């Protein structure tokens, strides 16, 4: 789960990381109040997309008089598909230089990784490798001040900034652990008046650890349909195409998309119906697929823990209640295959046992393919 900038900043401040003065702005009047309180501010759209500045999501207000007008330009605007409902007003900074620093997880090394660069203010992907200092964290040790200090000297910071950087990295690592973060990033980390200030911040929390962070406000990303399926407890991603797909298991679901594409079809979604899901959630998920009004639906099941007859029952249930008004292709193999196929045939639905033939068929029925 990604946190909005203002929340990330609040968490940084609580940990003792210096941030500029700032406050949340929900209305144009708030913006005026913010300027009266803080002085000239940057008004920053609180949306979870990068490149806000270039997209017009950050504007400056010098006086309380002009602030409401400036706020109105951003509030309610559409920023890369997200509506701006809230701004963060932050004191303007006289930035001397911009640094980059982040804590994230290195999957291969299976440990935290701290990255820093003297070239901040741009996405770290755009910084040349030789300008990046990477240091892995031994989870047995964690991060002490010397750790960041060593990085600071490698970045050629002055002794004063090196001391601050050492403390800062220690605190960022603390936040990374305390909030089960996937990413804690300060970019840019501004040098203002020879001190470090976090000018922008990202904090992404591990979804699997949210049970430890119930106090955090829930930030929902994704489309309405994605929310609906996530409420059933299944993994779902909406795509651009028009062949709706259900498969069991994440790898199998990905492979099914690939196969549809392989035959020239355009998948409408990723849906992992789960390994061993029962009739009810499977039926609910299928109903959601029907509601997406695809050109065709493909159900691709390898019966392992999942039982083919359960899947067949779910299909029949949806067919006989909501109805399935588009072509449906079913592939059933494995546990209770015979029972499943028999149930479907009884309802006039034929099932394939091989994935390639079934995929080709559904692409053809959708009027696509080569």
């Amino acid at each position, binding site marked *: 789960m990604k946190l909005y900038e203002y929340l990330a900043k609040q968490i940084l401040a609580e940990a003792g990381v210096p941030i500029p003065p700032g406050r949340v702005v929900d209305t144009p009047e708030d913006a005026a109040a913010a300027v009266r309180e803080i002085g000239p501010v940057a008004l920053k759209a609180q949306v979870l997309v990068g490149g806000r500045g270039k997209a017009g999501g950050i504007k400056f207000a010098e006086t309380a008089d002009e602030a409401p007008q400036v706020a109105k330009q951003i509030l309610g605007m559409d920023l890369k598909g997200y509506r701006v409902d809230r701004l963060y007003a932050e004191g303007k900074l006289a930035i001397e230089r911009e640094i980059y620093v982040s804590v994230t997880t290195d999957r*291969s090394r299976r440990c*935290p990784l701290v990255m820093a660069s003297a070239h901040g203010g741009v996405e770290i992907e755009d910084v040349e490798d030789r300008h990046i200092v990477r240091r892995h964290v031994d989870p047995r040790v964690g991060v002490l001040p010397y750790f960041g200090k060593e990085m600071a000297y490698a970045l050629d910071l002055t002794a004063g900034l090196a001391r601050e950087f050492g403390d800062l990295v220690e605190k960022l690592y603390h936040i990374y652990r305390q909030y089960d973060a996937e990413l804690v990033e300060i970019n840019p980390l501004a040098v203002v008046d020879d001190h470090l200030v976090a000018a922008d911040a990202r904090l992404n929390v591990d979804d699997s650890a949210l049970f430890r962070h119930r106090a955090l406000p829930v930030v929902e990303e994704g489309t309405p349909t994605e929310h609906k399926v996530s409420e059933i407890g299944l*993994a779902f*991603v909406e*795509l651009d195409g028009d062949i709706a797909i259900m498969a069991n298991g*994440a790898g199998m679901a990905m492979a099914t998309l690939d196969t549809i594409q392989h035959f020239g079809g355009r998948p409408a979604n990723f849906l992992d119906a789960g390994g061993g899901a029962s009739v009810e959630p499977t039926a609910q998920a299928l109903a959601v697929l029907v509601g997406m009004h695809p050109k065709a639906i493909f159900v691709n099941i*390898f019966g392992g823990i999942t039982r083919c007859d359960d899947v067949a029952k779910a299909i029949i249930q949806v067919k006989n209640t909501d109805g399935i008004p588009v072509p449906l292709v079913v592939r059933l193999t494995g546990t209770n295959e015979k029972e499943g196929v028999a149930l479907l045939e009884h309802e006039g639905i034929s099932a394939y046992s091989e*994935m390639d033939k079934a995929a080709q068929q559904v692409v053809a029925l959708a009027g696509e393919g080569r």
Partner: protein
Amino acid sequence: MAIYLHRGQKILVQGITGRQGTFHAQQMRAFGANVVGGTSPGKGGTLVDGVPVFDTVREAVGETGATASIVFVPGPYTKDAAFEALENGIRLLVLIPEHVPVADSIDIVTRAQDLGADVVGPNTFGVISPGEGTKMGIMPNHIYRPGAVGVVARSGTLSYEIAYQLTNAGLGQSTVVGMGGDPVVGGTFVSVLQRFREDAATRAVVLVGEIGGSAEEEAADYLSTLGKPVVAYLAGRAAPAGKRMGHAGAIIERGRGTLESKERALSQAGARVVTVPWDVAPAVAEVLR
């Protein structure tokens, strides 16, 4: 021979009285696994299908001498269960749960390393060796046959599909290993390949990968050392960037972890890369010829 597993290995089932634990303990035993005990706090002294249940791993290990354990508890409790096992002498730990916090997985994996223990998972379907007649996992029993093909996969169902096709093509398996679908897991493709290299029973390896991370690229670097033919199939070509494809680990982030870079690396390293699942078994038959 096999990797991780051996016939008669004494296996504990943590969380044996839960729905999943009970069912899979029974399935494991049906496949031949030597399940010597289970744990479930407060249920000590009872039996589940004839398997003795203990309150703690400490007692269970003391009474049964188990050295391997498979964990069926919800993700939030997995760290506790894993450390209970590791600190009480378990040296092969299979973690089935999904939704384990990554920070917990880092702690588990680090501790296991210090203790010289092996961790498979979390978010894995487990490990199975048809030749040794044992398994620690949740895979369906009927699709596997003894043979010479090692399989290492990130994803369960997809690996079942491939194992099934191998079996149907007369190509049995030495060991099938599920690394787990999470960003941080106990094994890596490289560490599993190292084992397959040492395993006389394995003559070829099928690598079933997916988008996200760089485990496949690292595997590619190891292929020259492996000295056995490899067939690779990777899923996620159609996946958009920035979206989790079910597995917490299956995500293309900021342009990293794409299928193209993985396939290129494996192909250049000499693996036979196939692009649809049904091409795996024929390719294996060919490389074994």
